[in-house]
């Protein structure tokens, strides 16, 4: 149990181990630990932030949803109104069209009637003339009696 050179040799190896640990072992692992601590802190902060954002966006979403509901109701009411209006318009225009068609048909009928009347007049005039001719048993000058005939036609 003597103190001898072993002491100095052990002190040297101790110094070497300390130096090695100080230089090469401690810094990289401590760096990794500190980085991880920072990452965890950042992650927690980000999580908190995300939670707040989620709350805010939830509020925003419900607001937007309310707005959209109101707008949708407005649109539906408007559309219903517009529909009714369109039906009314269609009814009116149909009615007008019908009236127009009826009027057209009436005037056409009128025209037909008058043209038929005209033709009848012509025929009646011819028949009258030929009847008169037969009654008189002589030639009637058409030109001389044209005025008479026309007068007759008007009376028919």
């Amino acid at each position, binding site marked *: 149990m003597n103190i001898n050179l*072993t002491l100095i040799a052990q002190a040297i190896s101790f110094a070497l181990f300390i130096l090695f640990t100080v230089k090469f072992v*401690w810094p990289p692992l401590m760096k990794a630990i500190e980085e991880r601590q920072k990452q965890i802190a950042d992650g927690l902060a980000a999580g908190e932030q995300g939670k707040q954002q989620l709350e805010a966006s939830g509020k925003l979403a419900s607001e937007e949803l309310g707005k959209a509901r109101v707008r949708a109701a407005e649109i539906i009411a408007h559309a219903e109104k517009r529909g009714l209006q369109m039906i009314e318009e269609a009814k009116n225009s149909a009615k007008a069209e019908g009236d127009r068609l009826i009027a057209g048909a009436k005037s056409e009928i009128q025209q037909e009637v008058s043209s038929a009347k005209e033709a009848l007049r012509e025929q009646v005039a011819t028949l009258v003339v030929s009847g008169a001719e037969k009654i008189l048993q002589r030639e009637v000058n058409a030109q001389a009696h044209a005025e008479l005939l026309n007068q007759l036609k008007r009376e028919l």
Partner: protein
Amino acid sequence: MATGHELNATSYIQHHLGFKAQAVGDHPFLTLYVDSLVTGAVLGIVATALMWWVARGATSGVPGKRQAFVELLFGFVDDQVKGIFHGKRDFIAPTALTVFVWVLLMNAMDFLPADIMSWILTNVFHQNEFRIVPTADVNTTFALSLSVLFLMIYFSIAVKGLGGWIHELFCAPFGAHPVLWPFNFLFNLVEYVSKPLSHSLRLYGNMYAGEIIFLLLWLWAATSLSGAFFGVILGVGWSIFHILIVVLQAYIFMMLTIVYISMAHESH
């Protein structure tokens, strides 16, 4: 055990407590205890290399089990240092880690069964006398405590300046009056001597006593069947208790290292 010697209690103990001495000069001081040196160096290299390997591959992401274990050790030491020392821990914390791990491993050599190790060393490595517990050698413990003393003086001078340190040697703790200078100096001198002495002898005493008790138990076990029976039971008990001592002594050694170095940073 020791071939060529008569086997009795004295030779058994002497064999187990004998050093592998290698003279490197004429003076008795110029002797190297190869066993302490080699075991200490091998354990230190294994420990620092392992930690270095883990530290090199360290990720700041999710650590593996290996990294988590080393980080646990780092965190433990760093917390101890943080509690005592207030300042930059770039040097003091890794120093404390080195002290703790190295001393713990050197103490833990005591767990290896003395006679089986002796047989292996004799028959495999052809080392007849080889002590495997470096901390049961005063040279190792004094090497550690004197290195710590050196660090204490170094940091005292580095922090307070040479003048500040000398001023403190003469003016603390009693006062700056010239009459008190010799008392202050004497007091500080005693402190500087007693610190490394108690630091190293506490560890040495514990480990040496542990070794001796194991050897006495094995001696008893060799006497008779009942001796073997009780020796084994007490040996198990002492081994379990010794786990506590080994870890505790390493912890105490580390804590005192931190305390002494941090005290050197404080000015009075």
